[in-house]
């Protein structure tokens, strides 16, 4: 953090520039609106016998109101985000009706003659303490649910429930808070939001996912922004670089207007580029698909110029407290498939484990989770869950545009068993009178063993999708979250390029396409290599598609093919990178490509 001594326009407030985590791209400038953790005043009060009746009446009314409010939030979550997120509130409702909570409060009022406020406070606090002392992480987390409930009940008692209604703001604001909880996010209307800035939270936190779905810039991991910023302060949020400036000076504001203009121009270009084909100057067509995390994002991807979905990570449906039912899954899949039809939609089956723990299935104490019980291994061990997902997928495929993608395949038996299960599910549905169209089944190429057996796999899979993050991690034996060796995570390592090339050769021999859906597919220099190596499809976050299209339309396939084939024989990643920079850095600058970062820093 830097504090500048430069003069402030119309203010003596100190300027802060804070680096955080870019969680949703774009630029915004406006006034801060703080979502503060509320404080409630509670004192131990004794009441008279006569007051008991009215306190108990107030208690019933409060609980009823709380129940209604949570139900409303649950419904709006269901509508705006999804069934899984809405489940959080189901357990809140169950706890709210729990006799061990309600009786304890009632007795404290009627027997001990304590005020309702004190009774609620002491009952819930005692429960929170009990949960926090349990020797099980899973149970300790439930204390958070009780805290959320505590705040909500007192907000209602104080009639100070945070309501972010349209009328409350004369202009849209920047929401600043320690962390945006699902219940706060859901009550914010998109017309009121310029941006989000929070102390904590990662790219996959609720706030980040929702910000991207709403196409609002967002920066998280700002440590203490919620303490530094005050209501009404000016703030600039740069969601592309992950920076915020509190109380900006004139230079900052000029810089912001510049960036904002460029960004808007890009957005306009995006609109005009939308209709242009992603084709190289010598006429090679590259399919550009979008990666999405929420079913709701599906409606917008075509606006970015995507002609399909290259990766929908279905595990996001499984992050709730309980497993989604077949019906819930089917509805989510159908929404995506029908939004894109007749364009193809690739849905990856449950990829639990590793760093993505699914509460009900995952084992949290594995010594080596990335090489542990995860992904397809979980699916084939828990056939009950896998079959439910396959049936939901098959039933959702009304328009026949589904492609099923199996993650973390390390050998033929996993592919064969999965295909068998798909056939069985199809037959079972047929018996129930539901005929489903035939479906393409592809595999992720992300385990080095799959590359070594890629010729056999190509004979039995309908398509390949290279997951570059895991493939690099496993091939180079580099855990990129380990800072000591993070610079060894090199996407352009000749070993990686050779693996990609071998995969393409084997696939094309059998006439099946190869997609790349990892982070490499959006890096400008990597795009050159991937196309040069013969990759057919690139799938990336929607807002990266325009740049990828620009790059593709500026190059000759024959050139990048020659370069990529040479790169296969280079000594190391540094040689590849320096060659690419020499050859293309100026061209990219001329094209106005803004996003490129040195490959080893790509994250």
């Amino acid at each position, binding site marked *: 953090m830097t504090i500048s001594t430069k003069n402030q326009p119309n203010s003596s407030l100190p300027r802060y520039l804070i680096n955080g985590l870019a969680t949703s791209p774009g630029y915004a400038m406006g006034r801060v609106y703080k979502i503060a953790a509320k404080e409630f005043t509670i004192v131990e009060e004794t009441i008279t016998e006569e007051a008991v009746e009215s306190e108990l009446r107030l208690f019933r009314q409060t609980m009823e109101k709380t129940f209604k409010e949570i139900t409303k939030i649950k419904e709006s979550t269901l509508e705006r985000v999804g069934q899984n997120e809405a489940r959080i509130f189901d*357990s809140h409702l*169950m*706890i709210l009706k*729990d*006799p061990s909570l309600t009786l304890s409060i009632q007795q404290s009022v009627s027997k001990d003659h304590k005020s309702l406020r004190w009774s609620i406070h002491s009952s819930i606090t005692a429960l929170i303490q009990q*949960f926090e002392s349990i020797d*099980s992480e899973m*149970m300790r987390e439930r204390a958070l649910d009780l805290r959320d409930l505590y705040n909500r009940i007192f907000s209602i008692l104080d009639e100070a429930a945070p309501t972010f209604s349209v009328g409350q703001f004369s202009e849209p604001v920047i929401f600043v808070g320690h962390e945006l909880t699902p219940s706060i996010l859901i009550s914010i209307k998109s017309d009121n939001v310029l941006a989000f800035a929070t102390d904590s939270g990662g790219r996959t936190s609720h706030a980040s996912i929702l910000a991207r779905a709403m196409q609002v810039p967002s920066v998280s991991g700002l440590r203490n922004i919620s303490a530094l910023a005050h209501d009404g302060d000016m703030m600039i949020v740069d969601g592309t670089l992950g920076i915020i400036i509190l109380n900006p000076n004139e230079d900052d504001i000029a810089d912001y207007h510049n960036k904002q203009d460029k960004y808007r121009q890009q957005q306009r270009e995006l609109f005009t580029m939308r209709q242009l084909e992603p084709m190289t100057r010598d006429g090679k067509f590259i399919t550009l698909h979008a990666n999405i995390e929420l079913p709701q994002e599906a409606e917008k991807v075509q606006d970015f110029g995507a002609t399909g979905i290259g990766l929908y990570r279905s595990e996001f449906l499984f992050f709730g*407290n309980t497993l989604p039912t077949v019906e819930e899954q089917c509805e989510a899949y159908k929404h995506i498939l029908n939004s894109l039809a007749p364009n193809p939609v690739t849905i990856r089956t449950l990829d639990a484990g590793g760093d993505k723990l699914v509460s009900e299935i995952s084992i949290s104490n594995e010594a080596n989770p990335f090489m542990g019980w995860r992904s397809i291994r979980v699916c084939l061990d828990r056939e*009950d869950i896998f079959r439910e997902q396959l049936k939901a997928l098959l039933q959702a495929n009304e328009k026949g545009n589904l492609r099923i993608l199996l993650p973390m395949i390390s050998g033929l038996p996993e592919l064969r068993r999965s295909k068998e299960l798909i056939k069985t599910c199809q037959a079972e549905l047929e018996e129930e009178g539901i005929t489903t169209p035939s479906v393409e089944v592809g595999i992720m190429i992300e385990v080095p063993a799959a590359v070594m057996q890629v010729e056999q796999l190509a004979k039995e899979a309908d398509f390949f999708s290279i997951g570059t993050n895991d493939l690099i991690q496993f091939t180079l034996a580099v855990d990129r979250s380990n800072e000591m060796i993070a610079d060894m995570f090199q996407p352009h390592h000749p070993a990686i390029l050779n693996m990609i090339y071998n995969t393409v050769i084997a696939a094309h021999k059998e006439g099946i396409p190869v997609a790349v859906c990892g982070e490499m597919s959006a890096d400008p220099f990597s795009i050159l290599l991937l196309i040069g190596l013969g990759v057919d499809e690139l799938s990336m976050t929607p807002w990266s598609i325009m740049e990828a299209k620009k790059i593709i339309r500026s190059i000759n396939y024959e050139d990048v093919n020659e370069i990529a084939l040479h790169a296969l024989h280079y000594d190391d990643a540094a040689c590849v990178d320096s060659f690419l920079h020499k050859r293309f850095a100026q061209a990219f600058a001329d094209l106005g490509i803004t996003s490129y970062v040195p490959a080893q820093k790509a994250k």
Partner: protein
Amino acid sequence: MISRSLIVTNKLGIHARPAGMIVDLTAQMKSNVTFIFEGTRANAKSILNVMMLAVPPRASLTIEIDGEDEEEAFSKLEQLFNDNFNEEPA
């Protein structure tokens, strides 16, 4: 009143989801249902109580049921435990 033992056979023990399933079931019963684990008694109609027992996998649990539908309640609970709460066995 009946008092019998059941063994928790799912891999993760009685965490939030099985607790919800238990309460869903006991709430429909007229009888009082009590879980006893390591000397602690818990009202099985309260999700908070059941979760707080934090019963680990393979543990044995005493179940006391008192009321007109006690046999039915027990057999339903027994079924739920035997099905590992639709989860993986320990």
